[in-house]
């Protein structure tokens, strides 16, 4: 049997989970584990390196990407459930000179 491929979801509000497994490739099934240990299977879209993220539900373009229960940026394209999420389809909203920032 193949080794269980795990994606950890840190906070209930999160719409991404982090994969801690080597060799996760497009179409493979991984188990999303939440804080309580509840497992949900999802098919991965894209090859996802160790420590990188996937969406645990669809995220629309412009919507915040949530990890640790907080915004870590915004989707720069529509993202499907299970899809690889990184700098190609999300952008930081902080530390930028081209945006007026709102804090707190």
């Amino acid at each position: 049997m193949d080794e269980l491929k795990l994606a950890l979801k840190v906070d209930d509000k999160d719409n991404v989970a982090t994969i801690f497994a080597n060799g996760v490739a497009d179409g493979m099934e991984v188990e999303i584990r939440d804080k309580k240990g509840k497992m949900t299977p999802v098919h991965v879209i894209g090859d996802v390196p160790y420590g990188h993220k996937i969406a645990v539900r669809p995220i629309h373009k412009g919507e915040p990407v949530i990890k640790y229960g907080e915004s870590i940026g915004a989707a720069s394209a529509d993202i499907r459930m299970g899809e690889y999420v990184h700098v190609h389809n999300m952008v930081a909203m902080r530390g930028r000179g081209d945006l007026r920032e709102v804090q707190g």
Partner: protein
Amino acid sequence: MSITFQGYVRPDGKVGSRNLVAVIPSVICATDVAQAICHAVSGTVGFFHHQGCCQLPIDLKRVTDTLISLGCSPNVGAALIVSLGCEGTDTERLVREISAAGKPVEVIHIQELGGMSRAIQQGTDLAQKLAMEISGLQRETVDISRAVMSIKCGASDTTSGMASNCVIGYVADKLVDLGATVIFGETTEFLGGEHILARRAVGGEDGPVGRKIYEIVNRMEERAKAVGEDMRGGQPTPGNIAGGLSSIEEKSLGAIVKSGHRPIQGVLEYPQMVTTQKGLWIKDAPGREPEILTGMAATGAQFMLFSTGRGAPQGFPSMPVIKICGNPNTYERMRNDMDLNAGVIINGEKSIEEVGEEAFALLLQVLSGRMTKNEAIHYTSTMDIYCLGPVI
């Protein structure tokens, strides 16, 4: 039962985990002489920085203040100041204030002594005398409340915020509860998480400490904008991005986990040292290793807990750095540089609390003299002083 460690009690009441002669060039131009002296004399460490001349007055004061704080830091037993003779650093005040902490201090001036070889000769004699003078000092049993821990993460990946930083957070809470002092920094890596920190400030988000946290983050962002740039491209680093961190916010939210959960007592300026402060404090310093390691040693930290995912091997001349690795793959690859494996948390083999207790046991040993891996292989030269203005 009280928790204790074996430390060097200094005349000013601070407690060191090491007993070193600091050879301090007051300006970059004196570095080669200071290096030669360090090579010649046992028990010495050099604070080799790149500052001290042709800088704005605010930075020259900052360099002087930081070198004073390093000289007064508890792991330093005596100091030899190596001056060129024409620097912008206030060498006289440097000597005076380190002496006022009750430590033996000597000074040499390269120009006055007639050049490099004579300065090396004279400096070597003086450093040898200082090393002999402090070498007989014995460690004493002191309470854990006299520990000052600095914390940092570097070469981070997504395991940092989920494993190694959680371990540091556990230890930070434990030390604060035991009455010790914990210092964290990396102001750049508050971006996106500053509201969480400000709410933890004593007096709340709208109190003076809460407002100060917002202020130092703004200051850091404005400095980048002042040169017509923003943080993107610099933070997160290419290594962070390869490790799966997609934005500065994601990096920050993972980074602040290591500060634990206790109230934030206040913000220390970069050169500032702790005197009577207890509990959790922020030091306003950027995340890059040379500058923050210096800032933390200047604070008076006796050691640092350093979390990494991709594998940061460096250390500081006078402050042992304990490496806690969150990534199990990196730990296997770099185990000669990593002191503790927190990758077992990612693998589900141990809990944060279990690894936290291992880290706590190790730090008590390091405080009492056990070497960290970076000390054992002399990876200890990572230092510089964080300045604000241009070189002029």
